[in-house]
């Protein structure tokens, strides 16, 4: 299943598709076992996550709110009137790429293979290898990077 199909299925599960498109997805879902498995996993995740996204309200009408933002956007006149940035993109590329590449190269060269890498790279944490030893069980994993928590939900209902 490609990424676009997965995103469409998520939108369908969240009720975000229009009626014609929703009907199309529902028909495709009924005929596609892979999609049904993904839909079941999304449902299971929803059952143990708390709440939905909080609705944020502002005390103004939609039109007034957006007109305030529009008013604050800088107007762009003819290109000749826009002053060139003090530090151009080209300048950044000429410095950042060689300096960054040299930094990384040095870092990996002075840390021999087999020695511990710094723990600051562990922000990439997430399950690397999962093995459910028991048939008729399923798992759903999610990693909340900001909280530093990985949760693996093990569904043992299939064992009964």
């Amino acid at each position, binding site marked *: 299943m490609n990424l676009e199909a997965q995103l469409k299925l998520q939108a369908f599960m969240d009720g975000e598709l229009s009626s014609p498109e929703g009907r199309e997805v529902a028909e495709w879902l009924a005929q596609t076992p892979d999609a049904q498995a993904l839909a079941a996993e999304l449902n299971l995740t929803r059952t143990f996550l708390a709440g939905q996204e909080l609705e944020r309200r502002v005390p103004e009408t939609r039109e007034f709110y957006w007109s305030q933002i529009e008013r604050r956007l800088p107007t762009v006149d003819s290109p000749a009137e826009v002053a060139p940035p003090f530090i151009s993109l080209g300048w950044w590329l000429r410095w950042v790429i060689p*300096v960054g590449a040299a930094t990384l190269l040095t870092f990996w060269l*002075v840390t021999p293979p087999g020695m511990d*890498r710094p723990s600051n790279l562990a922000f990439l944490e997430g399950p690397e290898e*999962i*093995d*459910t030893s028991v048939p008729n069980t399923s*798992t759903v994993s999610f990693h909340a990077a900001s909280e530093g928590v990985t949760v693996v939900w*093990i569904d043992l209902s299939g064992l009964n």
Partner: protein
Amino acid sequence: MSTLINLRWGLGFLFGLMLWAGQPAEVRADEMRLKAQLIWGTNQDKPNQPHLKDISPQMREKLKMLKWRNFFEVNDPDYPAKAFKLAQSETQKLKLSARCEIEVTYLGDSKIRVELFGEGRSLHKISQPLSPGNLLVLAGEDKNDTAWFVVLTALKP
């Protein structure tokens, strides 16, 4: 021009050295400190059971993303929560309750492998890095819309 190029590469080399040298000594430790707890989640008030203890506010904060309102540590004196240390490649098996055990192996480089056993049967195995202060939670459904959580916390060295 060549001077400028040398300057850029030289700066990069310097940053790389500073980055490498700036690592605290303890991140290169060949051992890991962990704590294993069995926690129970429910939307009911705390039942009158002596073995249930309130969890810490820090743990409460970590688990707030889950749907249960209350979490209690199962504090059975026969199977207390354990803080333990593992050297690289060392494995420990810990019994968290009469029916629940975990086997933890430190693979090095902040990476652990955890195998969960329920009533003596292997239910799940997972390997992942775990930095100090972070949690790995293996969870499942219990009766009456409650849930059990095996929580492994990586302690600071």
